């Protein structure tokens, strides 16, 4: 079953084209890794999926329902945009936890405001999610009392609390000290299941290779190469892909 279909997305800021004719699809339960150098458009693509940016062309279909079509985008009300973006969850590079709320409150805030259940149901579910990311003991802690890795795990629990169809990660470990990336990647890996569809923009090639079902390599706003990890990492077809993989290998 196809969970997500992205058709001919195009995005430009003035004359600068950031995304050129991006199309791909994703099966339910799949993990998609998007790789590529900085400025290749990966993050912009995620932001388009989450309605933080509005593409000039193209459409987005989730579970067979068109939730965005550039042709009629201007007719969308704020209300509709809010409803449609709930198909997606987004975990930011810089966590963006709410500093004035503790771990539990960060996770329960949105479900409470959106009235997604009774207070008790929301609390129980939040506690379960916090346990899932391994932070049950820090449930009363405020973000400033947590390490970067712990903060990112809370951010993941916060995104999961709204049951998104597709969970997006925007370079989830880039802002972390190297010794903290492992715990976050482990949590993401642990989320992989039949039901959860994920898109991960990442620089962690090992992670992409071993966790992803599908890999997209982006360069200069286009999808340069797309396929299974074996295809993209093991047998890249394009010169740009080879050069990029070579370069990221050298970094180690």
């Amino acid at each position, binding site marked *: 079953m196809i969970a997500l279909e992205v058709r001919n997305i195009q995005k430009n800021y003035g004359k600068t084209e950031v995304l050129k004719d991006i199309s791909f699809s994703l099966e339910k339960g799949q993990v998609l890794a998007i790789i590529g150098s900085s400025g290749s458009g990966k993050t912009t693509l995620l932001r388009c999926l*989450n*309605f*933080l940016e509005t593409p000039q062309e193209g459409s987005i279909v989730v579970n067979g329902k068109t939730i965005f079509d550039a042709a009629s985008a201007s007719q969308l009300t*704020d209300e509709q945009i*809010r*409803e449609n*973006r*709930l198909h*997606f*969850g*987004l975990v*930011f590079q*810089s966590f*963006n*936890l*709410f*500093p*004035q709320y503790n771990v539990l409150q960060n996770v329960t*805030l*949105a479900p409470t*405001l*959106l009235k997604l259940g009774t207070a008790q149901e929301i609390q129980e579910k939040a506690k379960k999610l916090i346990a899932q990311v391994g932070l049950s003991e820090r449930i009363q802690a*405020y*973000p*400033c009392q947590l390490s970067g890795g712990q903060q990112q795990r809370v951010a993941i629990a*916060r*995104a999961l609390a*709204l049951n998104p169809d597709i969970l997006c990660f925007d370079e989830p470990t880039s802002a972390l000290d190297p010794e903290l990336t492992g715990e976050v990647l482990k949590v993401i890996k642990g989320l992989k299941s039949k039901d959860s569809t994920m898109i991960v923009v990442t620089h962690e090639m090992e992670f992409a290779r071993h966790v992803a079902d599908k890999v997209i390599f982006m360069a200069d706003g286009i999808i340069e190469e797309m396929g299974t990890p074996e295809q993209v990492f093991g047998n890249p077809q394009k010169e740009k892909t080879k050069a990029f993989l070579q370069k990221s290998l050298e970094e180690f």
Partner: protein
Amino acid sequence: MELTTFSQQFPVVIQALNVGFVQTLKLFFVTLLGALPLGLVISFGSMSRFRGLRGVVKTIVWIVRGSPLMIQLMIIYYFPGLVLQPFLEQVLGYSVNIGWGGGESGRFTAAAVAFIFNYACYFSEIYRGGIQGVPIGQQEAGQVLGLSKSQIFFKITLLQMVKRIIPPMANEIITLVKDTSLARIIALQEIIWAGQAFMKGSQGISGQLWPLFFTAVYYLAFNGILTVLFAWLEQKLDYFKV
């Protein structure tokens, strides 16, 4: 009858200063009550997406912040009766009465309007700094969680903004306490007016400078209380970092 000894003068002076200080406090609290919310509205105007509105609001803020409050007080108090009323009477052909009235309540209302407007403009700029200082990521995090603009403002941005603006607001509010004395230009009888009356001569006491100096004790005490209050508030919000 002249009261010449300090012990004769003291109770009379304190009584008069107390009455003046009540007027000072009234103006202070009414100004805060009006200017705190109005400042927020103005700050939204100055951050509006609509260029025209933004331009108008910024021009008003520039005029109000850029010109002396004393002039604003005189314009707001005298303009309706002195200019607007004769003009309207000429146009309409019959008498109208739109002045503030000469009594204490008219003077107080005019002073309150001037102070609220003036301080709202100052507050609006502090608010704007506070709101724009909250990282954009906070707003985006709220957006991707499906929250509405007002939910994002009230549940996420507001408290972070408040924490950021406490020090500049404390400054401005303490200045407000002392600025209320400007209202005596339209003969609002606040505490400095009351103290000065004993220089000119009032209630059998004349040529005395100490009552005027003594008003400073009232200001100091009240600002002391405010300082403690702000320190307490700052400490209350110390549990998180922005």
